[in-house]
């Protein structure tokens, strides 16, 4: 299909290819040229080779010296009167292909505007790019960009140099635990936690569906232990007094976490679809926000629920509810602990920064049913009592304060897909919330949780609510994050569209890479950050490997600031290319003058035969 003069202008630096047969002697006009948007697919399928192809601006007005067929790339040998190319201006962001090369180049190259890109190559118009841009003091070509970035920050600040306002604070008192034992009663003595012998029966009696239960204490020496699929990892924390989540004082045990696994009476794993069962030390990506840290002790419960209920909603719910009996007993003990045992106190402040760019974080959580569900706002951190399942709430947006998130307002039933699921502990240490809260250049107004229902009609129902919720917040920018991949990417795209169409720049964050490539896209999905860490870009069955980490939060914030500052973010390449991330990280490091520590991936774990042979 031929293109118009405007399209030709937009694509001035894209390859010029004839859209239909053209006779020798004609003068090349936009009407003779094919739309560059379709080239990626043609090149991929081998129908088109762009080697030596001139750009659209070079060929316009030139005379064709030879009759050529449709889809013939225009090269210098068939044209007379080719124009000299202009400097590749920064208008290339529209199409991925040409912009790709410079961006993927080593960061040292002065890529105009340093961009972070990430790309997701499937589906149409879904390429993702991540700009790190505004900050990219990469070299001469980038000069315009940093200037803009400063104006973002500087522009907002002087206008209203209002003071930071601390809305509320949350104090975390840490108690160190170095040993976990069984004993006649649940208690904490010094740094030893005792769990009452026989508590198993109470777990079993708590829920009709729970038929059996075993408790295991896993110490670092026992990490090489076979385990069923890990359903959830939870912090052990409790509120002091009557304080609500997100305020007052929370007591938390360090060095120990709760870990839930389970099967039904037939021995079938709960929510079984291929899983992370196997040796713990080969299947856990240590120190991810949602995972155990290396060196911690696991209080691991294996729950057996009634046969055939492993795929029903009540099965996983009963397992989580019954397991909380143990956590609750520990919480009761913690409430009585003497202050002298506090090993560390940290104060989390919810700070509003009037005059700074106002941003909101929208976190999409699973809501398709069964373990694709989350309990929202329990009374105790990551508890059960008082919480409502987001599926029961209709998956509609629920607004919470950043401190509620960090205080365990989500008890995640966590869907399958070990590498990209966000477990309860993830929210307790949510990196994007922490980064945005601590960034003096933005004003984080809150966090919105929205469930991902199964059917499309409901997906669009909730995403429209997200659009209106964000609209009335009058924000300057938004993040939309999601866990896992699959049909939740439909509403993920829709949330971004609903917010983007209101003129608010949106940075989307998800695991995408190879297997999680987005199934849909829209024109508002221009700023994307890929949470992938795995070497091959896949769901590698290693717990927490591809979840949102600090490095992703830093990239997303840099990108949103760039977008809010009105700078361009370049499009990513069509195919997933991990270099985009590393280039962008280098650009951020150069611009901020600080080192971004990247987390390890599965390559750092003892290599199981499976990974060695199959994946890497």
């Amino acid at each position, binding site marked *: 299909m031929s293109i118009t003069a405007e399209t030709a202008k937009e694509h001035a630096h894209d390859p010029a290819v004839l859209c239909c047969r053209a006779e020798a002697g004609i003068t090349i006009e936009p009407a003779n040229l094919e739309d560059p948007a379709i080239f990626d697919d043609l090149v991929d399928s081998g129908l088109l080779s762009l080697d030596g192809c001139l750009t659209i601006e070079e060929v316009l007005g030139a005379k064709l010296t030879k009759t050529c067929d449709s889809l013939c790339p225009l090269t210098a040998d068939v044209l007379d009167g080719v124009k000299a190319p202009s400097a590749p201006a920064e208008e290339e962001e529209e199409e991925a292909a040409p912009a790709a090369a410079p961006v993927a180049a080593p960061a040292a190259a002065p890529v105009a505007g340093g961009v972070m890109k990430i790309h997701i190559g499937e589906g149409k118009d879904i390429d993702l790019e991540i700009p790190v841009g505004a900050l990219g003091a990469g070299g001469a070509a980038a000069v315009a960009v940093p200037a803009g970035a400063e104006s973002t920050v500087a522009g907002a600040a002087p206008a209203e140099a209002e003071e930071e306002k601390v809305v509320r604070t949350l104090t975390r008192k840490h108690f160190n635990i170095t040993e976990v034992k069984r004993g006649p009663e649940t208690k904490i003595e010094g740094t030893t936690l005792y769990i009452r012998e026989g508590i198993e029966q109470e777990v079993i009696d708590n829920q009709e569906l729970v038929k059996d239960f075993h408790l295991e204490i896993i110490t670092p020496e026992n990490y090489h232990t*076979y385990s069923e699929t890990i359903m959830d990892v939870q912090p052990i924390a409790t509120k002091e007094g009557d304080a609500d989540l997100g305020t007052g004082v929370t007591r938390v045990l360090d060095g120990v976490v709760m870990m839930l696994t389970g*099967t039904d*009476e*037939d*021995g*079938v794993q709960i*929510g079984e*679809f291929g899983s992370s*069962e*196997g040796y713990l030390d080969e299947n856990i990506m240590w120190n991810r926000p949602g995972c155990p840290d290396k060196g911690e002790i696991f209080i691991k419960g294996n729950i*057996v629920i009634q*046969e055939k209920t492993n*795929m*029903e*909603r009540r099965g996983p719910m009963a397992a989580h509810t019954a397991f909380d009996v143990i956590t609750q007993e520990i919480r009761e003990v913690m409430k009585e602990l003497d202050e002298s045992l506090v090993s560390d106190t940290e104060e989390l402040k919810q700070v509003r920064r009037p005059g700074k760019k106002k941003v909101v974080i929208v976190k999409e959580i*699973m809501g*398709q*049913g*069964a*373990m*694709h569900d989350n309990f929202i706002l329990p009374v105790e951190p990551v508890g059960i009592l008082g919480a409502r399942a987001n599926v029961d709430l209709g998956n509609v947006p629920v607004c919470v304060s950043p401190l509620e998130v960090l205080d365990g307002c989500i008890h995640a039933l966590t*869907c*399958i*897909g070990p590498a990209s699921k966000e477990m309860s502990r993830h929210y307790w240490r949510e990196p994007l919330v922490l980064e945005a809260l601590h960034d003096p250049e933005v004003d984080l107004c809150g966090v919105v949780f929205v469930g*991902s229902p*199964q*059917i*499309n*009609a409901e997906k669009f129902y909730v995403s429209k609510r997200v659009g209106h919720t964000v609209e009335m917040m009058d924000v300057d920018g938004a993040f939309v994050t999601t866990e*896992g991949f*699959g*049909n*939740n990417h*439909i509403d993920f795209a829709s949330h971004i569209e609903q917010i983007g169409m209101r003129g608010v720049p949106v940075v989307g964050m998800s695991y995408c890479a*190879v297997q999680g490539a987005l*199934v849909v896209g829209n024109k508002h999905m221009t700023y994307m950050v890929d949470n992938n860490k795995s070497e*091959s*870009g*896949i769901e590698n069955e290693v717990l927490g490997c591809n979840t949102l980490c600090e490095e992703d939060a830093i990239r997303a914030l840099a990108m949103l600031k760039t977008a809010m500052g009105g700078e361009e973010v370049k499009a990513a390449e069509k195919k997933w290319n991990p270099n985009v991330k590393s280039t962008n990280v280098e650009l951020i490091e150069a611009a901020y003058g600080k080192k971004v520590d990247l987390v390890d991936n599965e390559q750092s774990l003892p290599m*199981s*035969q*499976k990974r060695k*042979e*199959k*994946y890497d």
Partner: protein
Amino acid sequence: MNNERLHYGDKIIYMEGVVVDVDDCSISVDLKGRLGFFKAPKRMFICDTEPKVGQEIGWNMSFPEQLGPEINEKYVSNIEKERRKQEEMRTRLDNKEV
């Protein structure tokens, strides 16, 4: 990337199937033409309306290709552990019922 190991990965064929079971977390599908059966998590299905038994669904797929003759002992061991555990639990359940 691993798909380079496929020799026929670009042979995409259109397939249809019938939903034969829906539970809270998965959908089971019989492939039309007696070509098999699969069960996958709900989040991997795209549905305009509530999924129900008897509905027809379509998708593109290619042929699953063996990636090599090697046997991954870890998987074998997991499968074996799983089988033994299920057998044990089944026995226990049967005894209870008696």
